[in-house]
């Protein structure tokens, strides 16, 4: 395989060269413990503080409202479990949606074992949360609303500001899992009424294993990881200095090129969508046509199964992902695709392609060409297609 066309940037991204360079000194040279008192460790402490400030500036937050964690899933777990514990005198009801990441859904299922009640709000056919249903779900004992900023599979961006407003009108804490949106779109926690936010480094050309949780100063949550006094006693464990530095640098770069990148990626994404819908018959686009992440395209190809599609794309050097059951080891296809109303069969035939600012038009042309050949080939083997054609005649 000569060239790899990596179109799975929603899964993870390449570490930016400048990010890697910024991290390097904190492995072999400036390896001091950021919590230590001597001068040698001081540089590590400063680097952590600097990263914290970069993140806070981007989010319109105070540096002391930013906590470094081990990643997006940890932040989600912390937000949900700690809010549940902190507010259980007020109530045990949490509102979330049917299309959240498993870091939210499985944490909610876990909380249900401890008597918490979860309302899962539906989305429309584009994956947009139904605000009227959300309002109706609010009760006296609702303690938390958690809605993702943008969906990882279909890219739809949620009406975060409105949801935050609804939450605050009812004095309910609002958390958003912003793992896919962080660094891609402007986020101001005050303007958007966000109380808690989760984000991850490796989705924005930063390192894996590091994330943040923004926690509004007025919201008091307990520590999730107990131990030493790091992160103002809220998150124990020796600072992952290189990771944190990388997170800060990745944020800085993402913010500095946000507009340019958005413009470039969304134009290329639109070209990809247009080309695929034109060249591959019986195909649909999943997710909102315009109000979606600039790098996300998600298609369903009728009569074709996703894993078979992925393997054949892989043989042509193209990396994508699918919501097919066969790629998840379960019998059910993606919960997100089912939530937007797709029948199982159509959900099994899904393909997510997520671009980066390094993706070129030539890459897209090659992918569209290969895709149309592969889909045609799989359809020629498909009994569903055979039946469809016979019925059509």
């Amino acid at each position, binding site marked *: 395989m000569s060239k790899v066309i990596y179109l799975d940037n929603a899964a993870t991204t390449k570490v930016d060269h400048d990010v890697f360079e910024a991290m390097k000194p904190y492995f072999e040279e400036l390896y001091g413990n950021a919590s230590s008192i001597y001068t040698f460790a001081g540089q590590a402490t400063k680097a952590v503080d600097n990263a914290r400030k970069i993140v806070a500036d981007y989010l319109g937050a105070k540096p002391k409202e930013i906590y470094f964690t081990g990643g997006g899933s940890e932040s989600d777990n912390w937000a949900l479990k700690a809010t549940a514990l902190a507010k259980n005198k007020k109530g045990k009801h949490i509102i979330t949606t049917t299309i959240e990441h498993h870091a939210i859904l499985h944490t909610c299922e876990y909380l249900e074992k401890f008597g918490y009640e979860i309302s899962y709000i539906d989305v429309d056919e584009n994956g947009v949360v139904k605000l009227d249903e959300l309002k109706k779900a609010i009760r006296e004992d609702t303690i938390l609303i958690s809605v993702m900023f943008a969906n990882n599979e279909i890219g739809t961006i949620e009406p975060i500001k409105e949801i935050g407003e609804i939450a605050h009108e009812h004095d309910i804490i609002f958390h958003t899992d912003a793992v896919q949106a962080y660094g891609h779109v402007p986020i101001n926690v005050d303007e958007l009424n966000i109380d808690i936010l989760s984000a991850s480094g490796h989705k924005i050309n930063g390192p894996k294993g590091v994330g943040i949780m923004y926690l509004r100063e007025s919201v008091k949550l307990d520590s999730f990881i107990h131990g030493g006094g790091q992160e103002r006693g809220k998150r124990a464990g020796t600072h992952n200095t290189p990771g944190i530095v990388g997170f800060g640098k990745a944020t800085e770069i993402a913010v500095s090129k946000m507009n340019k990148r958005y413009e470039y990626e969304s134009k290329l994404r639109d070209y990809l969508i247009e080309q695929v819908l034109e060249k591959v018959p019986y195909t649909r686009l999943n997710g909102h046509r315009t109000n979606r992440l600039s790098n996300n395209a998600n298609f369903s190809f009728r009569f074709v*199964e996703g*894993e078979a599609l992925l393997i054949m794309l892989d043989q042509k050097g193209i990396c994508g992902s699918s919501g097919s059951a066969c790629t998840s080891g379960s019998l059910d296809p993606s919960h997100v695709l089912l939530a937007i109303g797709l029948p199982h069969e159509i959900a099994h035939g899904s393909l997510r392609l997520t671009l980066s600012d390094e993706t070129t038009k030539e890459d897209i042309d090659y992918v569209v060409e290969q895709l149309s050949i592969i889909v045609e080939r799989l359809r020629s083997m498909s009994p569903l297609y055979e039946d469809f054609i016979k019925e059509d005649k």
Partner: protein
Amino acid sequence: MSQVIEYSEKVMDHFTNPRNVGEIEEASGVGTVGNAKCGDIMRIYLDIENDIIKDAKFKTFGCGAAVATSSMATELIIGKTVKEALLVTNKAVMEALDGLPPVKVHCSLLAEEAIHAALWDYAQKNNIEIDGLKPPVEDIDETEEFYAMEGE
């Protein structure tokens, strides 16, 4: 969303270059098993003459393993007598493919089911009874439940 699935070289070969893809006009027997809900549908066509399977073709909607098991199953039954074909179990298909990842074992069950369903169709059409052949199971989920109960 997705997970890497490790397939043997044989599975990859039969997925990339599947044998016997297609249809047989006026087939002696046709069997379709599985459902779109769980993501696998397999259809096997048989051409049977004097109790011998002269030809077998398949069409499959499904993952790499589903395509590979269909391909291997048709290879294994061509040239066999009806009775011999009945003995081509999911285990035989799996072994011939140098194994399948545990989550894909159900694909080989589907292949076995598809052969049986096609043979059942042949028997029905010709008003004959084939020893040991049961009517096809409509839904592979039920089959899986059955095998789960059997402790396989």
